[in-house]
């Protein structure tokens, strides 16, 4: 109400006032009773609801005094001791003692009541349906690490790699994949077997339960597509083709599923599905002809 009295009243504020406080003077003033001997305090307020009806709001609160910390006589006396040493010159702004503005919790090592959990051997079962799953493309391990972090990167080459070579002993293969010690720089594409393995990897990645989605609207992004497809099963990769020059979506994308059945269901359900005013076309991705 003070605001209304103010000479520098701006219309914007007036507008706001009309919503809430404008009609307040029509209402009885709030009443506070107590706290009585039981610590019960009553507050009666009136307000108008949307229909202009008077509403009485009664709030009952009980205030309880905290049990007074039992201090001994000596402790109370010590409380009034004069400061000494460096503490004499302490002004209020010294800020030697402050309350942390960070809430520190007693961090429990596991949820209360639960027993120490054994890690399940198959990381798959712990991951709910629809979650993005880490699948290492080098060693095929699920949920353990990303491909680039694969600890077996150097050891496990895809079997295609050996096609044009005589069968080698495991120790030989390990040595072959590691670049020769002290050798000159070899560009990645000249490295032994790089072209074949690289190509194979790309192929393998693309046609693993891969679903092609076409006729996407331009503002569909990967998260949208993920959102759409995750209901069918674990999605391992979502990709929306983007024009490199304009940065606009090219209207198609790929979704890889962990399980073939999930991909099949997705195709059955979503082919012909209306999405953003367009009718989606969902089909198995065919490997590129090259």
């Amino acid at each position: 109400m003070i605001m209304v009295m103010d000479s520098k009243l701006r219309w914007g504020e007036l507008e706001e006032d009309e919503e809430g406080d404008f009609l307040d003077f029509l209402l009885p003033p709030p009443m506070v009773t107590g706290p009585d001997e039981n610590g019960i305090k009553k507050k009666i307020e009136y307000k108008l609801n949307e229909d202009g009806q008077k509403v009485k709001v009664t709030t009952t609160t009980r205030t309880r005094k905290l049990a007074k910390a039992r201090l001994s006589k000596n402790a109370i006396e010590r409380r009034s001791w004069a400061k000494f040493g460096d503490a004499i010159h302490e002004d209020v702004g010294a800020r030697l003692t402050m309350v942390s503005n960070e809430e520190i919790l007693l961090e429990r090592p596991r949820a209360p009541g639960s027993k120490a959990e054994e890690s399940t051997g198959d990381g798959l079962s712990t991951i709910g349906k629809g979650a993005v799953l880490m699948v290492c493309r080098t060693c095929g391990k699920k949920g353990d690490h990303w491909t680039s972090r694969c600890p077996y990167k150097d050891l496990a080459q895809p079997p295609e790699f050996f096609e044009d070579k005589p069968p080698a002993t495991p120790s030989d293969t390990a040595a072959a994949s590691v670049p020769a010690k002290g050798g000159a720089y070899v560009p990645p594409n000249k490295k032994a077997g790089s072209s074949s393995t690289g190509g194979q990897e790309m192929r393998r990645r693309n046609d693993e339960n891969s679903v092609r989605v076409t006729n996407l609207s331009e503002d569909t992004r990967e998260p949208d597509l993920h959102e759409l497809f995750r209901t069918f099963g674990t999605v391992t990769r979502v990709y929306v083709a983007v024009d490199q020059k304009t940065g606009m979506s090219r209207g198609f994308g790929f979704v890889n599923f962990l399980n073939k059945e999930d991909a099949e269901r997705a195709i059955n359900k979503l082919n012909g599905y209306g999405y953003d005013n367009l009718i989606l076309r969902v089909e198995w991705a065919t490997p590129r002809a090259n």
Partner: protein
Amino acid sequence: MRPILMKGHERPLTFLKYNREGDLLFSCAKDHNPTVWFADNGERLGTYKGHNGTVWCCDVSRDSTRLITGSADATVKLWNVKSDSALFTFKFDAPARSVDFSVGDKLAVITTDPFMELQSSIQVKRIARDSSEQTGESVLTIKGPEGRISRAVWGPLNKTIISAGEDAVIRIWDSETGKLLKESDKETGHQNPVTSLSKSADGSYFLTGSLDKSARLWDIRTLTLIKTYVTERPVNAGAISPLLDHVVIGGGQDALHVTMTGHRAGKFEAKFFHKILQEEIGGVKGHFGPINALAFNPDGRSFTSGGEDGYIRLHHFDSDYFNIKM
């Protein structure tokens, strides 16, 4: 809980001690001024000036009138708790490492470090009621253990002295004759130097922390190992809750190696263990250096930790702490 941070010391904390009623908190640090704080709100009450080196340890008398501090300047000083001038100075020829008043405050046990070619020692001094009659003579001197003695405390009825130190052996001595009564054996004992020793509220058992990354609970009379709490960091400090069946232990990497790792890796939390089940209850984070000192308020409703980072953190427990179910 929102801890109260007390930044009165400019150097790493070494020791924390509550008085019996739990309203005062005494802190020692590597700067030369032991400090007393109000234990409820963390307000500084005063500092004690006079030491000329790291203050390693302190103890306060039962009636909260006398404070004894042991320092690396090879002195132990006796103070009136409410003023900053020393009542008496005991002079030693080696740095004093730990001090402890006996039950009744008539005696104090002091340990000194090995220094130059001197051996470490445990010395008992008589504390006079009237400080003008105080003398510096030792009632008893015990020598023998190799290396530094981290801490020596009084056993039940002042009949024994319990010591632990760098040689990882816990020993019980007769406080009259200075004879060695018991020794922890290698199999059940600590493998690495013992850094801390703190008694339970009733003084019937005690907790030792060691650089072998464990803390152990011992019977004070028979020196039998009761419990072991295993953690993944060197233990610098430990305390036993006087209220619940909890122990808290703290530590972290050596100060030497701290700069080489991030504070996440340092493991600077205070870890709570269930005293009987030996299971970890939880950790309280906050320090950005190893924890050097821990103390429970005698009412068990708050605890304090002091770190290598120079901060004292005073934690009043939330109500849910008291309802933790294991």
